[in-house]
């Protein structure tokens, strides 16, 4: 099978890769680029474990073709912290015990970050509906919602 050459930006860096025409962006990230923080829970767009940002929008990378990334900007979980400085969402997920097994966590963090980018002060209901595309089987979502609320408050500079 022939491959396609792709030039793209991932977490701010220029990246080039070859991929098959039918290969998903998730497979490219995981299998070709070693960015295994994005997870595959279903491969059909139903679980959100593979959530990544594509040109500032949250997408299921299992539903995007690797070839589609040409000339676009991708952000993954690996780019969320700056060196040792965790993003407030990452810190709050830890403090609130918002993960048990953690397989859903990268997807939730990416999706929650996308939410706070557009809506810094979401209601509980807005958080719940925004995150409805991400499945978590362990937590019952309670602590995830609280962590997002708390991170949003901190990022707004509200006293806790």
């Amino acid at each position, binding site marked *: *099978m022939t491959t396609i050459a792709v030039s793209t930006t991932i977490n701010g860096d220029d990246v080039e890769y070859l991929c*098959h025409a039918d290969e998903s962006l998730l497979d490219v990230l*995981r299998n070709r680029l070693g*960015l*295994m*923080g*994005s*997870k*595959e*829970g*279903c*491969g*059909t767009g*139903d*679980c959100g*474990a593979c959530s990544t940002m594509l040109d500032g929008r949250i997408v299921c990378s299992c539903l995007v073709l690797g070839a589609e990334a040409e000339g676009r900007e991708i952000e*993954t*979980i*690996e780019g*969320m*912290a700056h060196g040792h400085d*965790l993003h407030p969402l*990452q810190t709050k*997920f*830890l*403090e*609130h*015990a918002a*993960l*048990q*097994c*953690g*397989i*859903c*966590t*990268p997807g939730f*963090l990416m999706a929650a970050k996308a939410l706070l980018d557009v809506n810094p002060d979401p209601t*509980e*209901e807005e*958080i*719940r*509906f925004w*995150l*409805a*595309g*991400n*499945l*978590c*089987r*362990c*937590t*019952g*979502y*309670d*602590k*995830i*919602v*609280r962590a997002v609320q708390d991170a949003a408050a901190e990022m707004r500079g509200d006293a806790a």
Partner: protein
Amino acid sequence: MSFDASYNEKELNAVGTRPVRPDGVDKVTGRARYGADYNMPGQLVARVLRSPHAHARILRIDTSQAEALKGVKAVVTAADLPDLTDGDASLFAILDNCMARTKALYDGHAVAAVAAIDVHVARKALKLIEVDYEVLPHVVDVDLAMAPDAPVLDETIITKGVTPAPDAPSNVFAHSEFGHGDVAAGFAKADEIVERTFKTEQTHQGYIEPHACVASCNSDGSAEMWVCTQGPFVYRQVCADLLGLEVSKLKVTSSEIGGGFGGKTHVWAEPVALALSRKAGRPVKLVMSRNEVFRASGPTSATSIDVKIGATKDGTITAAEATLRYTSGPYPDTWAETGAMTAFACYDLENVKTVGIEVLVNRPKVAAYRAPSAPMAAFAVESAIDSLAHKIGIDAVDFRIKNAAREGTRSSYGPVYGPIGIGPTLEAAKAHAHMSAPLGKNQGRGMACGFWFNFGGQTCTDLNISADGTVTLSVGTVDVGGSRASLSMIAAEELGIAYEDVKAGVADTASLGYNDMTDGSRGTFSSSMATISAARNAIAVMKQRAALMWDIPVEDIEWKDGQAHAVGASHDNLAPLSVKDIAAKAGNTGGPIAGHSELVADGAGVSFGTHICDVEVDPETGATRVIRYTVIQDAGKAVHPAYVEGQYQGGAAQGIGWALNEEYIYGEDGRLQNAGFLDYRIPVCSDLPMIDTQILEIPNPNHPYGVRGVGETSIVPPLAAVANAVSDAVGVRMTHVPISPPRILAALKAQR
């Protein structure tokens, strides 16, 4: 050395706090390695060919074309997994389930597998494998499978546990019976009796991480496997048995695990990956797709349950009886028996009888799912209890309190209870603000109790003290939800050092002695016991080392607040020695300092919970929304309360999904129609409210800190709590879960 596990009340510093878990940063940055996140040099990709038929004889498999395809390195069928099970029926069932031998027994049953250089070649190869099937009649429904004209899955099965033994084979593997007293006499004394049949559908554990492993067999007979599992030692044993490997030559490393809930206590594809690797002579990576997870890894039983309960007008239950029919998939098992044991365990009953009936069907082999078999039984019993309370006009909580099991009650499964915690959970529910909050239009409230047997098991733990006085703790129970944090806290507590100075990790099978799986709510219960024991052994060593450093008799040394103190007037000029002081000198006082522990943790103690649920039902669409939910459960002692709450909330959410949405839907052809998260709908964030928790702490007498297992009980009450709430809201008793919109609309229509 024997270890005294009995509860000892004392002030605890680290235990009961909420520190950040040691594996946390890796998990929020994407660095944690799960099953599919590992690769070996030269690794091949495996794909499995699965039966499209629910029941079919395999007449012929021709793999020659697939083998001839360039890039294919191995093709295996059942012939590559010879039967080494030596008459062990349950091991044979595992083998046959991994790879069908003479018959495909359900849609999705593996019949062949390939290992190839990449996924494209592997997929192509699967298409080149020819299988001739003789399609047989199938049955998937539990009641239909018991009908006299049902197709029989296994002609060798003659029902056990009935006299006289039947003379013809059937799909009923066994009957089992529990109880005491005389139920007929009990019912004769009742003023009111409720008698109903309930049904529950088959659900899946629904862990977000599909099964994944990398297997590597070497020519020297050694092998390695990286795998997501709840029990690397058990996987090692089962795989070694099935493949004829020497146990100690197979090293199994458990990856981070992306959820298990019982589903990763059984092997599925791992022996196949090893067989492929053995044949190909190269490492093989096998990752299931979500479709395969649903079709071919273990779901729960589907059930049909008859319940009959009678009580006098004053609210005393006089007799209770249940017949529980559980599917086990295509192989014999004991799921109904477990259901029968748990069904009435919450109550103090003079006359009780339960019968469990194990039924074979053409569905995947049933696997454990969090408090396996208990939620369905509790659904039926707690629904009937609720009806009966209404019928005699007594408050549902008071009715349960009046009949609750207590110390000295003969349990419905046999033994007499010691001190137990159902009463306090009920009293807490009665007093809870949730119970008296007002309800709006189309809203209803329900509550229910649940019971589960927790257990302990074989446990081995190593605690090593480094030269700088920090501690590494190696445990053999897989961390499914934060237990590394809890165990680090326990080690810190026992040694008297800071939590940050302890790092707990999960060891592979080559680095630690045998450990049972993380199941039965045992992870923190057992490994904390072993950690306490290991820490105490390390303290004994440190006291000896301090004695050498001071040159005084060890008897003059006392361990207090993380330090060795020299006691007695002659030593009062000696400043205490900390772990760090002692560790720094270890090289010259006898070498490395460690504490080990091998023990069987027993006496986990049974567990009870009470849940309260409010729902709102849309009478036009039949859609139900849970608007408030409260979990009350005894934790003995909550080591890390945030993770205990997490267990309560997670179990409740899974139970709510089971109650309202989740079910395996089969077509007429016996094929699974909803093998994906789109159509098998687990609760999402917008489906649920916050889930309130109340942790009761009634110390477990058989654990030094009073800890009890907390992982499973929370999934037992929700089916009934939700059903009771919906029934309250719509005024019709709902008897079939999931209580999906069509079932609610049908019930409303039937009532009109």
